[in-house]
């Protein structure tokens, strides 16, 4: 365990292993997203109340799940970076912010497009929606901090603090549908109960969630590798890679 943790602190080790993982996560993402999309669009039955607009769930829910878990991962990375000064955690935090922001935007956008035919409005100032909008601004805040602070160590510290403080928003998003009277429907997946949907509806959703996570892993491996090259560009091993013409 400690040996693994120690290795994880080594950018060179991670750079090499990430390069080996990229094709596998790429294949998994293509497979899961491809079959999930076909299933969701062609084979899943329509909802008896919402009709076919309900098919938006297959991108809305995975995007929203990932938007939140990405932020939690960033907060964990931030804590590791602050406590153990692990450079790799700082790099992950920086690399994840734009990806998380894009998924938060996707969740908000698909929610709006789904809300129009279902609720009759693109946007309502509902607790869940407002908390998600705050999450988007938290992501923007971290991106802005990274862009504004030149010293990478200081930028990482500031971003880590914002990620940890912003973490209070995550349970607010999660429980907003229970705490407040809201238009938004409750969670589709719960750990303790069977989904309220029939299997032919939630199984493609599960496949899409797996596809989104694999895609996220793929993108994070690529981005973290870029970040490693950038931060370690003065080291011997990166210079060797650069001289031999890239990867």
């Amino acid at each position, binding site marked *: 365990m400690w040996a693994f943790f120690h290795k994880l602190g080594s950018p060179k080790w991670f750079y090499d292993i990430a390069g080996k993982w990229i094709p596998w996560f790429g294949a998994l993402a293509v497979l899961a997203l491809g079959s999930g999309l076909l299933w969701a*669009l*062609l084979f899943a039955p329509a909802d008896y109340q919402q009709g076919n*607009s309900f*098919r938006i769930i297959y991108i809305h829910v995975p995007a929203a799940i990932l938007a939140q878990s990405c932020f939690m991962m960033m907060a964990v990375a931030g804590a590791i970076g602050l406590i153990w000064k692990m450079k790799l955690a700082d790099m992950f935090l920086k690399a994840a912010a734009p990806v998380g922001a894009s998924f938060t935007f996707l969740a908000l956008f698909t929610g709006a*497009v*789904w809300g129009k035919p279902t609720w009759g409005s693109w946007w309502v100032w509902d607790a869940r929606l407002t908390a998600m909008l705050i999450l988007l601004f938290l992501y923007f805040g971290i991106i802005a901090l990274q862009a504004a602070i030149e010293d990478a160590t200081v930028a990482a510290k500031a971003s880590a603090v914002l990620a940890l403080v912003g973490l209070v928003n995550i349970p607010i998003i999660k429980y907003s549908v229970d705490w407040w009277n809201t238009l938004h429907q409750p969670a589709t997946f719960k750990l303790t109960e069977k989904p309220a949907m029939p299997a032919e509806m939630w199984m493609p959703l599960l496949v899409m969630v797996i596809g989104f996570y694999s*895609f996220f892993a793929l*993108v994070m491996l690529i981005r973290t*590798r870029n970040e490693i090259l950038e931060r370690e560009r003065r080291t011997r091993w990166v*210079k060797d890679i650069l001289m031999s013409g890239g990867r």
Partner: protein
Amino acid sequence: MYFSSLAEFVAMGGHGVYVWLAYAVFAVIMCANLVVPVVQGKQRVRQLAQRLKREETAS
């Protein structure tokens, strides 16, 4: 298969605009998430390699 014709599939029971708009934005965001870091990474590697070669010839 849920739909019996292509036209029915495109129409999505009258909700075609919403469904396809959502899926189009999904496609754009996924592509951008993948293409941007790959292109940026390649550019940066080329840039750094050039700078490195210049430094080595200078010294």
